[in-house]
Structure formats: C-alpha cells, structure tokens
C-alpha cells in the first residue's frame, strides 16, 4: 500500500489491525501509536474513572498509561493480548495514585451528574444511577476494581484475574460481595425514599 502524506498515513492507520499498529509503533511510527491511543483511550479512561472515582486523577492516569506503555512497548510480546497488558498498566498506576490520595485526598465524583439530562432516561433511572454512583464511590477498592473491569470493560473473570493478579475465585467473590453491598445500598435508599 502506498503511504503518502501525513494525512494519508493517519487515515491508513485507522484501517490497520492492532498487531500491525503495534509493530509499526515499535518501528518508530509514533502516529501508529496515536491510533492505538485513539482505540483504547475510552476503555482505559473508564477503567481509571471506575477505580479512582474522580475525573482529574482518571485523566492523569489515562495519559500516563499510554506514555508508560509506549516507553516499555519493546518489552511487550506482540502475540499476547494487548488489552490485558494495557489494562494491567493502568490498574497498577491507579493503585499507586490511590495510595497517594490517602494522604492527599480530593473530592470524589459527584453522585449527581451535571450537564443536562439524557432525555432517554427517566427520573427513576437517574435516581438509581445516582445511588449506584454513590455506592461505587463507597465500595472498598478491592470490590470496585473487578466490578469496573467486568461491567464497564466487559472482561472475563480470567482476564480480570490476570490484570489484578488475583485468583479467579477471589475475583468472583469480590464481584459478588461488591454487588451485594450495592444492592444493600439501593435497598436502603429505596426504604428511605418510601419512608
């Protein structure tokens, strides 16, 4: 394939498969890495937001993940799943940031989302989502992380176990307990609302 101007190259990267993009990145084609960032930024950001529960930290860690991943790309085995690798980096950087935050706390995500309503959701749905957001922010970190990976990033228990360096059984237990706590939270809120 003829690769011409920068714009032509960029559009060419959009159609390339992941393995080709990674090989190109390793060969020094930074634009190829830009396409990887484009494809994964939302997934990694969602992971960070779910783990850390504040968008400033999530932004930072999202950014750092892609920089660090590129700097260490030559250590990555192309035949292994890239998503697991990049999510592992993000997960560990999040843990590091959380430890820092214990000594330098900032305000978490607001329970009520600002910026206008989505007309597709009803008021009841919005209330429930608020409850879930509050509940997630209150969940212990060890429950919140696998729940985010499962229900935002749609990963299997096996993949989550690899990313978090936990046994698969523990991942399932943590998800089960986290959901039980959330269910309790929503149940309690329902009792309060109906009181």
């Amino acid at each position, binding site marked *: 394939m003829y690769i011409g101007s920068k714009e032509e190259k960029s559009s060419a990267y959009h159609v390339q498969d992941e393995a080709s993009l990674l090989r190109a990145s390793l060969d020094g084609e*930074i634009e190829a890495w830009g396409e990887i960032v484009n494809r994964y930024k*939302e997934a990694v950001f969602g992971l960070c937001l779910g783990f850390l529960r504040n968008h400033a930290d999530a932004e930072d860690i999202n950014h750092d993940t892609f*920089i660090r991943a590129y700097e260490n790309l030559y*250590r990555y085995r192309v035949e292994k799943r890239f998503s697991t690798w990049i999510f592992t980096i993000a997960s560990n950087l999040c843990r590091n940031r959380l430890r820092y935050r214990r000594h330098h706390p900032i305000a978490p995500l607001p329970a009520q989302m600002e910026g206008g309503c989505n007309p597709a959701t009803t008021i009841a749905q919005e209330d429930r989502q608020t409850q879930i*957001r509050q509940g997630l922010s209150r969940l212990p970190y060890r429950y919140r992380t696998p729940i985010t990976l499962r229900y935002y990033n749609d990963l299997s228990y096996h993949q989550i176990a690899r990313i978090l360096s936990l046994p698969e059984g523990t991942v399932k237990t943590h998800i089960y307990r986290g959901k039980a706590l959330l269910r309790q939270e929503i149940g309690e809120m329902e009792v309060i609302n109906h009181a």
Partner: protein
Amino acid sequence: MHEDKLEKLLRDTLQQEVSKERHYLDGLEKEIVAELTGQLPKRGWLQTLTRLFAQMQRSRRRQLAVIGITAVIFLFLGIFVSERVPLVRGLFSVYDKQQKATIATNSDEGQLLFVMPAPGAQTVAVVGSFNNWKPILLTDEDKDGIWLTNLPLPPGRYEYAFVVDGRWWGQDPLADEYVRSFGGYNSVRYVGYTGDKI
C-alpha cells in the same frame, strides 16, 4: 433487586459516567504523540543495543548463550591478563588472602559459626531472624570464656544479636554489617550459595 437489573444498571451507570466526561479525551492521541515526539531522542547505538538486548530477553536460550559466551571470553581475558601483568597478579593474591580469612572465620557452606567472647558469663545465647528471635544457647566446653555454636542455615540475609546473661549485644565483630533496631543494634551476616568452601 434482581441480578440482571443490577448488572444492567451498573453497565449503564459506568457508561453514562464516561460519556459525560468524554470531552476530556478529545485530542488525547495527538497530545500523546506530540509528547512522545518531543521526548524521543534520535535513535543512537545505545538505544539500538538496548532494543536488541530486550528482544533477546524473550528467548531464554539466546540469553543463556550470550551469558555463556561472555563468561568464557572474560574468563580467558582474566587468565591472560593475570598471567602477564604483575600488578594484577599481586591484586589477585590479596583477594585470595581475604577469601581464606573469611573461610577461617566461617565454617562450611550453609553453616554460620557464632563466636562470643564472654568470660565469666553464665549463659550466652544468639537470637536472630533465622528462628523468630528465639534464643539458641552457645556453649563453652573448654571453659576458656569463648562461647560458640554452629548453625546450619539456608542462603539468606540474617539479623541477630547475642544475649549474655540477659543483656543484648548487637555488634558482633564477625558481622558483615550492623543495623539499628528498636534503639539498639543488630548484626547482619549473609549466607550465600557461593559459600566459603575451600
């Protein structure tokens, strides 16, 4: 709440959160590319070498081959230099003396000899990280005031102290190093695989 409903709610909530914050991600790839482009030095010989070595790290066989060949090269180089350069020969002989001194102090590989001069003491024990700081009694069979014991220990780093009639002594002259602990001293010795065999 039913399990499926909760799972759907979780998915929707997490998606919604990210959707609301999506604008933060606009242009991230350009930002990352710009930062990396600014950071990257021109690829010189050092980077090429590092990259080659990192690629080699993926193959255990290649790694071992490189280590083996390097070891052989340096072995022959060492022999060649030591045979021909009197100063180096002299240095090696000093090193040999030091090895022998260590050997004279310590016992066989995997054993650590503890020696405490304490004439007139009633009991002398050694306590250390090798056994959760439980006292192990030393003996002075010939009653010359030098108390000894020989402990078989696996390779590792060990902190210890002597307890002479209930009093802790943390600065053993035979120690490799000393550390402060709880306001006192501990001695440190290493037991290695390289060992002290003659």
